[in-house]
Every structure is written in structure tokens, then in C-alpha cells.
């Protein structure tokens, strides 16, 4: 019984939250890695792209809620608004590409120039998002809150420890799986996806075989917009939406992409989960779990928490550093320009 209780506590406080968070990071890191693979620069505006997409979704959700909608059955209304958010973000990033990045492509500028340009884009998107929705926390979730609540779980199983599985967590995992399956189907099975991979592997050869670079770039941005908006909305539903938090997500997302190997989509997903599980695992106080497992009289005194939750950035950073030092191309082999 104690063993089961310990397992349920671990599931409830570490495994489920980390899986949901990992799925959100993986979607974000996929966006970063795709841009890196096709456009060959690290996009510092990615966090703010996520914030923009989420903002549009929130505004639409509020509109729908004002019309009297309260979730699509058990699911949040935000899902209905998601396509609108993706479309708006798609327009924004393609517009940005036309106005900013395309010029540097024709100039064949160095990657670092793109990065600086993306800083400018970051400022602008930051300004737009804050201008429209402000800097405060926004909640926009509705529908059923729990798939299983701690109370029902206790009644069902008779265990001391409760297990809560929130709709937003289940939704995150389900949507992330669908998005990843769609993405890989697209990259591996369709003609356009194949041309994207070819372009990423060898630009010159791809140009030689008649692939239109502008089309590849445009489709990349569209996919990135979809991924970023989805990741942002899922994160917002799971936690809450605050522009500055989204900007700060940049660090774990980059860490995930680099740990997995920049430019490698499978690596980005893996990296997302590595970062999420380490972050949650290192900052979780294991006292409860150990107390269940330890024989009587051996209960731990301290919290058994390796690091306080405020240092979660240090975790992503530490992993990043270790990977950079021992395996600079990432776990799965990424590009190294």
C-alpha cells in the first residue's frame, strides 16, 4: 500500500506535470529547431511569437465566452479559437519574414545578423502584445477542470494519496501527440515536407533540384506559427498567460532544442522532456515519496529538495552546459554551423 501511495504521489507531483510541461517545451523547441534547420539562425523572438498567438486565442476565447460559450463539452473553448490564433500568427510571422528576414537572405548575411534582427522583432512583438493585452496574468480556461480529481481518485482506489489529472494536462499531451504525428507525417511523407528536409540538409543541392527556397521558407514559418501558438495556448491553459513568462520560456525551449541537437526534430522532442523532467524532478521536495517508502522511524527530516523552485532556470542551464561541454551537437546529432 505504501509503495502504491509513493508511486501515486510521484505520478501526481512529478510525472504528470513534467510530461505536460515537457510536451509544451517540445512543441516550442520544434519551432526553434525548424527555424534553425531551414533559416539557420536562433530565433530570439520565438517566446514572443508564442505570446502573440496565445494572445489572439485568448481574445477570441473571451469573445466566444461573451457569446455564452462555456467549453466544448468538457474541453476548453480556447481549442475553437486556436485556428484563428494560428492564422493570425502565421500572417504575422510571414509578414515579419517579408519585411525583415528576406532582405538578409538575399544578402546572404551571417547567422548572427539574423539573430540581432530577431532581437528587434522580439522588441516589436513584445510591445504589440503588451500594448493589446497588458502585462498581467490572464486566465482563459473553461470547460471541465479535471479528468480525475484527487477526491474521486481517493474514493475510487481507497488510497491515502490523491491523484489529480487536469483536463489541461490531458489535453496538452493529446494535442502534442497529434501535432507531432502530423508534423512528422508532413516532413517524411509529403513532397513539400521532403523538399524542406532536403533544403535543410543541403541548400545548394536543393536549389539545384529546383526547390523554390521562398516557398520552403514560407511553409516553415507557417508550421512554426502553428507550433508556437499551440505550445503557447497549452502552456497558458495549464498554467496561466503572462507575456513576461513567455519571454522567459525562451531559455528552457532553447535548452531543449540544443540538448536534443539543433535542427533535429526528434531531438527537440527528446530535449523538451529531458529539460522538463529534470526541472520538475530537481525542484520537487521528495519528502512525501520517501516517507512512504522508508521503514518506520527512518522518515527524512528535511524536504529532500535539491534546489528551490526559483532556480528552475539553473536546471535547464546546467543541463545545457553539460551537453555543450561533453556533446556539443546535442544528444541526437544536430547541425553545427
Amino acid at each position, binding site marked *: 500500500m505504501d509503495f502504491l501511495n509513493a508511486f501515486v504521489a510521484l505520478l501526481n507531483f512529478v510525472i504528470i506535470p513534467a510530461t505536460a510541461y515537457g510536451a509544451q517545451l517540445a512543441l516550442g523547441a520544434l519551432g526553434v529547431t525548424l527555424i534553425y534547420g531551414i533559416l539557420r539562425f536562433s530565433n530570439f523572438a520565438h517566446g514572443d511569437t508564442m505570446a502573440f498567438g496565445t494572445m489572439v486565442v485568448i481574445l477570441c476565447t473571451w469573445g466566444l465566452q461573451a457569446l455564452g460559450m462555456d467549453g466544448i463539452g468538457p474541453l476548453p473553448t480556447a481549442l475553437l479559437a486556436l485556428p484563428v490564433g494560428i492564422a493570425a500568427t502565421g500572417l504575422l510571422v510571414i509578414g515579419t519574414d517579408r519585411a525583415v528576414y528576406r532582405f538578409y537572405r538575399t544578402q546572404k548575411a551571417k547567422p548572427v545578423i539574423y539573430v540581432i534582427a530577431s532581437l*528587434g522583432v522580439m*522588441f516589436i512583438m513584445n510591445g504589440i502584445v503588451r500594448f493589446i493585452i497588458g502585462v498581467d496574468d490572464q486566465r482563459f480556461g473553461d470547460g471541465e477542470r479535471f479528468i480525475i480529481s484527487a477526491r474521486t481518485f481517493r474514493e475510487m482506489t481507497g488510497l491515502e494519496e490523491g491523484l489529480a489529472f487536469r483536463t489541461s494536462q490531458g489535453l496538452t499531451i493529446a494535442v502534442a501527440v497529434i501535432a507531432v504525428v502530423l508534423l512528422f507525417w508532413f516532413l517524411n511523407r509529403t513532397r513539400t515536407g521532403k523538399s524542406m528536409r532536403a533544403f535543410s540538409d543541403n541548400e545548394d543541392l536543393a536549389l539545384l533540384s529546383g526547390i523554390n527556397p521562398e516557398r520552403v521558407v514560407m511553409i516553415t514559418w507557417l508550421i512554426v506559427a502553428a507550433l508556437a501558438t499551440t505550445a503557447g495556448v497549452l502552456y497558458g491553459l495549464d498554467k496561466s498567460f503572462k507575456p513576461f513568462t513567455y519571454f522567459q520560456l*525562451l531559455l528552457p525551449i*532553447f535548452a531543449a532544442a540544443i540538448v536534443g541537437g539543433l535542427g533535429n526534430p526528434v531531438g527537440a522532442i527528446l530535449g523538451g522532456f529531458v529539460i522538463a523532467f529534470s526541472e520538475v524532478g530537481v525542484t520537487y521536495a521528495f519528502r512525501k515519496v520517501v516517507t512512504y517508502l522508508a521503514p518506520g522511524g527512518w522518515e527524512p527530516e528535511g524536504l529532500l529538495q535539491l534546489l528551490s523552485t526559483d532556480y528552475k532556470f539553473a536546471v535547464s542551464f546546467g543541463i545545457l*552546459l553539460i551537453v*555543450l561541454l561533453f556533446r556539443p551537437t546535442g544528444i541526437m546529432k544536430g547541425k553545427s554551423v
Partner: protein
Amino acid sequence: MSTAPDQTRPATSGLPAAQSFDRRAALLFALVALLFIGTGFMQSWNTTLTILNMGLVSAIMALGVNMQWGYAGLFNVGIMGFVALGGLAAVLVSMPPVGEAWAAGGLRVLLGLVLGAATIVAAILAYMRLPVGRMRTLAMLVILVGGFILYRRVFDAGVAAVEAIDPATTGYLGGLGLPIILAWPVGGLLAAGAAWIIGKTALGLRSDYLAIATLGISEIIIAVLKNEDWLARGVKNVTGLPRPVPYEIDLQANERFLAFADRIGADPVTFSSITVKLSYAALFVVVLLTLIWLSEKAWNSPWGRMMRAIRDNEVSASAMGKDVKARHLQVFILGSAIVGMAGAMMTTLDSQLVPGTYQPLRFTFLVWVMVIVGGSGNNWGAVLGGFLIWWLWIQVEPLGTLLMQGITAGMSEDAWLRNHLLDSAAYMRLFTMGVILLLVLRFSPRGLIPER
């Protein structure tokens, strides 16, 4: 690595010692000076001096970043962290030590830190000395885990003891009680130490990796400042730092000062505040001019030429026998030290350390806008950018509010949109900075005062 994708050097300025402060630069500086003077007439001289003082600090930060980016092409986006370390130095140097806290657990905290550092050093030594194999991994794990447990045992109790001492007013170890001016070089040293650690690990990898690593370390430094209450009171802030210049109150009580104010016909209160600001400005100007002079010397020296050679073509520079990695590390540390010094100066100016105010947009990316707009690879350009962008950063807000008032003039008083637009005017500055950065990068990629 150069800023400009299409960097075409003018044929006339091929000489390395060409004057970097020419007529164009003088004209631009005069224009920026006009902006400040205009502020004095339009708003108030007090405002002008406030902007000027932070402008001076910003110019020093830009100078440091320009050293990394303009001289060596290193992309550092962790400026905020180095600025904050400078701020920490100001607290550690100038605040009086808290005797009780030291007695309660000060040595224990220090011992804990030493143990932590020793663990890391031992692990690194084990990694370098032991033969490759499973034994080495095992040994490193044992050292790290054992060391960590030992460190937490010693450290946690010390921290708890220190933080329990009068948490409402102190609850930290305090500083050394030395004059705060000393904090400026100390801030530089702290930042240099952090830069050494980063540089050792992330330099030599790709440029993006250095960017991410610096971004990460700056967030961690802020997290440490916010959470380690024994160090600098965390989010409870340290206020009332001693000043290197007189206090307004003392000036207002000073007979000779009052007589002087009377003679020039000034209001003693305003005049005392202006005097204090001018004293700060004088100190900052001395530092800035010294740094510019040193930077210009370095730029025109064989060392400066070597740095540019490395920046423009690492392969051929290393073929000529230059140690690219060591030079990068060197210039990275130098630049960070300057930024750290500026950070200490800023905290001195504010007389308080508020970790919550360190925001990457303001302290990292805004400094980047200064360097790019001013002219990377030109010390005077970076300084100009520092003044100009800081002035804009401050003035865009009232301008934005004016604009919004103009736009919303026709709307009714309680219209939702009107209030929203007026409230949001403050965020115009982010937007404006982004637009300025993109415009300069596109149409004048070498900045206002280009590299010579």
C-alpha cells in the same frame, strides 16, 4: 565577424590609426547634446540631469558590449547578469557588516560556500586526472553527490541562522562598510570572474551557444540575487546605500551652500538636488572618459589590430599564430568587467539594490540597441548610442502618451478603448526600440558612427 553584411570599407580610411572621432561624430554628439539641453528647457534641468546620469552609465555599458561585439564579434546577451553583479558589489562593499549575523552563522555560510566550490574543483580534477572509464564517472558521481550533501548540511544551517537575525531590517551578512566608490572596481572584478567561468565553457563553441549560455547565466544570477536572502536580502531589497556625494539635506543645512544658492538666485531645494546630480555626473564623466581613452588606445594598438584580424577571419588569424580562444576569453572578460563596473555605478546612483527591477529587455537588449544604433566597432559610436537610446527610452513614454491623447481626443471620456490606449502608451517604447533597431540594421548596418 562583422556587423554589416555588406561591409565595404571606404578606401580612404585604410589606416588603422585613422581618427575615430571625426566631424560626423562631433555633429552627432552635438545633436544629442541639443536633445538633452532641449529637455532642460522644455521639461526641467533636474530631469535632464537624471537622464544624463543614467545615460552616462548606459554609455559605459555600451562601451563594454562594444568591446565584446565590435572588437571581437562575441555575441553576449547576458549583460543584465553582469550589471546585477556590479550592483551586488555595491552592497557587499559599502553596507556596514551585520555583526550579529556574522556571529550567528557567517563563518558557517562561508565554509559551506568553500565546500561547494571545493566539490566542483575536485570533480573537475577527477575528470582531468583519472583515466577515462567507468571508474572516472563513478568517482565524479561520488564526489559530486557526497560534496553536495556535505555542502547543504553546512550551508543550510548557516543561512537559516543568518536570515533569522532581525529579518525586517537586516537578515543578511551586510557588507564591508567601505566607501562605495571602491565597489566600482570590485563590481568589475565580480563580473570578470563570472565572465571567466562562462568564457571557459561557452567560448569556442558556436556563436548561438554563447548567446544562450549568457542568457541563461544572467537569469541565474538574478535568481540568486532574488532568493539568497543572506547575501543581499533578496526581494526585500537593500536600500539606503551610502553615497559618494553629499546628501541634499546636508547641503540645505550648509551655510556656505545656502549663501551660494542665494547669490545665484536659485531655490535651495532644487539647487541642492541639482548639485548632487551634477556631482554624480562629474564622477561618471571621469570614469567614462578614462574608459574611452583606454579603449581607444587598445583599439589602435597592435592588440586591437590583432582582435580585429581575429574577428574578421579566425582561420587566418590562427594560422598567423594567434591564440583565438585565449584572445576571445580575454576580451570577453574585459568587456564584462566594464559592464559590471557600470552596474555598480548604477546601483550607487540609485542608492539601492532591487533585484526585481532587473529585466532582460531593459538591461540586456536595450544595451544591444545602443551598440548597434551607435555603431559597433567604434567606441565613440557606442557612447553616442548609449546617450541617444537612453534619452529616447525615457522620452518615448511621454511622447507616446501625447500621441495617444491626440488619437483619443475625439472619444468620449469613459470609452473603454480610450482608457485602454492611454494605459498602454507606456509599451510604445518597446515597439519603438524594435523599429529603431531594425531600421538601423537594415539601412545603416554600421551604425551612426561607423567603424574606421
